């Protein structure tokens, strides 16, 4: 289409839509608006859209809406079996009267051709701009479609090559693709069925007949769809995990929309030309995303009888047109129009530039957005990317931390570290060489003049102290673990006091480790997220349960260890954690994601070593053979689980008893009062 034509049509559209758009009402919207902030939580923000008007339409239960660039609204008037064209506040044309049954899906291409999905006749009808019926497609006859597959078209979209994408109700194979001649091309964009542990167990233990009784575990079928400028397909699926409800498919059929906060009951999705995705759900909530999956805003309110402007009762379709959102409500038989605010306009301007990679140009917009809302995560992300591109790695680092982007943080950190290393590499090497020379010279001199003799004498005296001896005993486990456990058993070395000290230190170092681990490797973004009570209680509980269970199991299984031996032995077998957990956490502060292997390997090594020490401990302290050791450990674990289960049962019983007593007292109080 020529550029002039586009401009004219857009102008016409703006005028006709402007007639529809009244000035903003003097009222706060009936909903609050939320934006994505730290830790994946939603935070309050200024209103992004305000309700402008509710336009009553002469329709009955309309199920779909389409707005063409010239501002004409096409509405699938399902209850009256027709499609109407609404422009300039009045009904301009009517299509398909007498032909259509219950049109539920609608798409209008640039030349005015209407594609209608009809639930009544289960067919696709194609009309031209004058209203003449061009084609009618029923169930595809190609064998690829499936012998028993049903064709229940509900929604339709048409891409640039005039291929039809059709949502067939209950289709587990995904979206149905037809070409313009009505031939079935294939299925596209299927959802995956989810497997749960319960289902796995069922399949393992139940017979064929019993399994046949269950409802089949099929993939949910998509409920609505839209195509973007590049003809990439977006679908929404109701009844699935809210973070995965929106999917964006590549040509190959792979979903590239990341997990993002969403809703389980999305009814429609719309992707605009500038990459903004809007979806509306059954509760009247509208979600707005950038096409890369970042959630921008959530707002909306259901109509609970208060009759306020901006509430929705049963939204069936949403479409964005020139910065306003048009939502079709099939219960109200009305169109609810939301207009954009200054704040959201600034966000969109920044987002448009960011999505196309113009990070530096987007920076001033996002700075302004941060003035409006200090917790707007998207703004920090965009600013961080801008700083990184400009080479300002320090500021990029802080911004990535706020945006909770570990990858970006790691990259910025790597760059910073690189510069520091390059600056300080030569002095560092020089220092190392000087140190080694100094060391060899010093050792030789010391051997001659014995300067450190008083230090050695002092050390010998200190070593006699019980506590120091116990501490040094820990290092013996590195080379001779089995032997050292024997020493514990024979009361030769190791003390109960020091064992408790080791336990305390393990817990403390674990807690410190959580705080001191670098942001890149830590699962927590800020220290306040760490639940200190749980982090302390859990290890204490585990250690206590292990010791108790192990000793009790050993008494039944002819173990030789006493309580004292078990406690001290377990303490010393935790020495890898005690010695290395904190240093690893400190080390993580100089690593980037490129060296994640180092961090992961050391952590796994420490845990494996601890596990090994525990096995050796059980073997030595109780004097078991290897098979007996394994048996004892398994039974110990089982006993620990039983302890926990018993405690839980007691807890449940006691709360029931408490509830019962309280409600009796309440009832007595009420009846006596009456």
């Amino acid at each position, binding site marked *: 289409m020529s550029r002039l034509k586009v401009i004219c049509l857009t102008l016409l559209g703006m005028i006709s839509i402007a007639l529809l758009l009244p000035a903003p009402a003097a009222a706060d919207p009936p909903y609050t608006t939320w934006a994505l902030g*730290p830790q994946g939580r939603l935070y309050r923000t200024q209103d992004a859209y305000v309700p402008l008007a509710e336009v009553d339409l002469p329709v009955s239960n309309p199920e779909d809406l389409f707005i063409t660039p010239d501002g004409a609204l096409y509405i699938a008037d399902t209850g009256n079996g027709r499609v109407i064209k609404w422009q300039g506040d009045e009904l301009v044309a009517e299509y398909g009267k007498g032909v259509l049954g219950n049109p539920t899906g609608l798409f209008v291409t640039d030349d005015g051709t209407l594609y209608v999905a009809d639930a009544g006749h289960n067919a696709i009808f194609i009309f031209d701009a004058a209203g003449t019926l061009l084609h009618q497609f029923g169930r595809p006859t190609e064998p690829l479609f499936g012998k028993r597959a049903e064709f229940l078209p509900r929604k339709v979209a048409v891409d640039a090559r005039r291929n039809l994408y059709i949502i067939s109700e209950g289709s587990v194979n995904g979206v149905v693709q037809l070409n313009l001649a009505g031939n079935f091309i294939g299925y596209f964009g299927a959802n995956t069925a989810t497997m749960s542990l319960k289902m796995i167990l069922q399949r393992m233990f139940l017979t064929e007949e019993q399994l046949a009784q269950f409802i089949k575990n099929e993939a949910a079928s998509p409920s609505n769809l839209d195509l973007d400028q590049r003809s990439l397909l977006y679908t929404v699926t109701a009844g699935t995990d809210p973070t995965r409800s929106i999917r964006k498919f590549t040509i190959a059929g792979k979903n590239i929309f990341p997990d993002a906060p969403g809703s389980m009951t999305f009814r429609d999705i719309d992707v605009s030309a500038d990459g903004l995705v809007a979806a509306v759900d059954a509760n009247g909530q509208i979600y707005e995303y950038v096409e890369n999956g970042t959630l921008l805003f959530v707002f909306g309110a259901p109509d609970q009888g208060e*009759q306020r402007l901006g509430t929705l009762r049963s939204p069936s379709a949403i479409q964005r047109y020139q910065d306003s959102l048009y939502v079709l409500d099939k219960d109200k038989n009305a169109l609810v129009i939301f207009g954009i*605010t200054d*704040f959201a306009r600034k966000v969109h301007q920044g987002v448009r530039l960011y999505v196309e990679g113009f990070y530096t140009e987007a920076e001033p917009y996002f700075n302004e957005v941060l003035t409006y809302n200090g917790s707007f995560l998207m703004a920090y992300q965009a600013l961080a990317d801008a700083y990184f591109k400009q080479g300002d790695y320090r500021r990029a680092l802080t911004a990535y931390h706020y945006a909770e982007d570990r990858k970006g943080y790691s990259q910025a950190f790597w760059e910073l570290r690189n510069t520091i290393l390059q600056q300080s590499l030569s002095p560092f090497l020089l220092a190392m060489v000087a140190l080694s020379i100094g060391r060899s010279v010093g050792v030789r001199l010391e051997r001659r003049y014995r300067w450190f003799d008083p230090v050695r004498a002092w050390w010998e005296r200190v070593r006699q102290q019980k506590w120091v001896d116990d501490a040094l005993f820990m290092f013996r486990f590195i080379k001779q673990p089995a032997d050292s456990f024997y020493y514990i058993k024979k009361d030769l070395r190791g003390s109960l006091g020091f064992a408790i000290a080791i336990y305390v230190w393990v817990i403390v170092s674990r807690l410190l480790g959580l705080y001191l681990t670098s942001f890149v490797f830590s699962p927590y973004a800020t220290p306040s997220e760490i639940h200190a009570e749980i982090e302390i209680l859990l290890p204490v509980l585990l250690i206590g349960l292990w010791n108790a269970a192990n000793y009790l199991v050993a008494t039944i299984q002819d173990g030789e260890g006493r309580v004292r031996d078990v406690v001290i032995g377990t303490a010393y077998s935790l020495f890898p954690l005690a010695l290395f957990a904190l240093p690893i956490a400190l080390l993580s502060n100089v690593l980037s994601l490129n060296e994640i292997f180092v961090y992961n390997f050391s952590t796994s090594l420490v845990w494996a070593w601890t596990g090994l020490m525990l096995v050796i401990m059980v073997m030595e302290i109780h004097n078991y053979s290897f098979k007996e050791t394994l048996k004892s450990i398994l039974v110990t674990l089982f006993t620990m689980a039983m302890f926990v289960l018993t405690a839980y049962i007691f807890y449940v019983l006691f709360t029931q008893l408490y509830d019962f007593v309280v409600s009796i007292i309440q009832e007595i109080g009420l009846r006596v009062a009456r």
Partner: protein
Amino acid sequence: MKRIFYLLLVLGMLSGLTGGPRPVAAAALSQDLPPAYRLVAENTRFALYANPETLALKVLDKQSGYLWHSGLDELAPGDRLNKSWAAFASSGFSIEYLDNKAINRRISISNSNCDLRFTPVAGGFDAEVTFVDFGITLGLQVRLEESGISVQVPAASIRQEIPDFRLGLLYLYPFFGATRGDEVPGYMFIPDGSGTLIQLRATTKAKTMFYGKYYGPDLGMITALPHNPAIRRPYRLTLPVLGMVHGEGQNAYLAVVAQGASYGELHAHPAGIITNFNFLYNAFIYNESYFQATNRAGAGVTVIQPQTNAFDVEVHYRFLSGQEATYTGMARAYQRYLVERGILRRPAAGSPDIGLRLEFLGGDKEKVLFWQRMIPMTTVAQLQQIVTDLGIANVEVVYYGWQPLGASSMPGRSLRLEGQLGNLTELREVAQRLIANGGQFSLYLDPQAAFVDGKGYSSGGDLALSITRAHPQGYNRNMPLYYFNFAALQKRYRSLSADVFSQLGAGLALDGIGAVLYSDFSERQVFNREQTLRAYQQLLAESEGRLAFYTPNDYVFGVMSAYYDIPLGDSGYLFTDQAVPFLQIALAGYVPCYGPALNFSADLEEDLLRHIDYGVYPSYFLSYEVTGKILNTRSDWIYTSSYAQWGPIVAETYARLNRVLAPVKGQEIVAREQLAPGVWATTYANGKQIVVNFNPEPFSSGAFVVNARDAALRDGVLP
């Protein structure tokens, strides 16, 4: 002979009238006086006529010659009123009674078996109505006053003699000023937000009538409102007024509930719902049923409250004509009413500049490891620095989150400042310096709030109880809270406020106590809403310092020195037509009104224009530190506040508003008109007029030009 003839005629007519109006072709709002009405009082401006059989009234406004009807005498063809509604429309009042199964039914004077005693007195009449079948008696007293009439239903006159039937609702003169469809142009006024109008039409977009409880719902009866942070509730009705205009510039009336608003409701019926009439009225609740759960599973019974609500009803109707018959005139009539009663008083002259409200966040606490760590956001020294930096003398500073451990902790009984923010001497110095410079300093306090996980109060003895013996719950500023009973509230408020006034010389910015009204069913002492209202008024009147309130109800207007967070619009109902600044006009010239904090505004330009249009002063919520620091605290609803970001904007918007609003500071609003779509002109008592242009194109009227989305001041013409 003649006398007997007339007597028979009158008797015949009276007997005919007891069956309610019969369908007879009649004019819409005739100015004729049916013979059943007798003159009961007269003064220079009005004549009051009453129908002794139905207690219906007619008021003749002698200035304009307009006759106001309190209901319908006859039905016209096409009126969609069945017998019950016809009786409702013609009787002076109707009631709803509750039987012993808590089922309610409505009856009116003219369609039920009544014993009516009508006694004319000087200035009006007294009446006593007994609904014989149900044993319910009410007394009515109507008096003619200088500016209108007053209708009273004293609590002492109410008797419920049959225990099976209880008085539920009283509908007082429901069809007063009712109009048929669109026969009379005009509008109904309801005090939703700043005020809103419902045009009188034949059809409406509303699906049900509008009803709102004055002063918000009673948590003592419903215990808690479901809390959904995703929605904004409609505005609470803070003013117990309603009104109607019959022809703008011709006739109007305003009804003010002087007593009994705490149990009053406003019902508005646009034509097209149920009936083809536009009418609105006050209803008063004497007994309600409620659901009492008897076990934890939720099963229970619906019972009627044990004690009937004891309150007097007093409603004043003010009649306006000519230029006064607009919503501006109604607002000014309401202002006159408040001034007459001594509720509004002229403030001292003060600075010629407008005020600016700056609310500072002191800080809040965050959970770290096991303990709570205080995060200071604005220390006392930083507060002083910001105020000096801005250089605005007439600034109203509110300090929020000053208590130990910040905003989400309970303030104690005595004044203690959080250590990390400063000490009391510093605070006193800052407060005094501010006041000496012409500003105001207040500490934020919500005396009713007992935070759910807060310390310093006893949940057994200090909290209010609802009728189901649960603790009423609510939310304010993102904190879930319980409510104090009056004894505890009084003790805490008295000691803390005495400290604030004497030690600091500062004022208090009170939230909650002027806005939330609940009845308390504690065994120790039952306080119904009316008693609580009076107790609050008495307690606040004792204060020896300056008090400012956040969206208060009218019962604290007497002690209010500033109004914070004034609504700048309505709740956005589909069936209302236009938001009007009724509240602002009623307070203009007497109490400075400050709008909601502009940091949270989505469209700053639009909100500033509305501030100028309504004569409201700007507010900002500020903190010295960046907002990111409190994102893990309960104050995360303050999503933007850093002074570094907002400082220049505060200064600029203040200067802009001051330029336009300073010349009209302290002046009453006398007129308001729309010059063109999107262009509004407000005229003040000193002759100045502010013209606000909301459109994206400039507006010109002769040589006077107002730029797009801007406002200008000119000398207007006093009406």
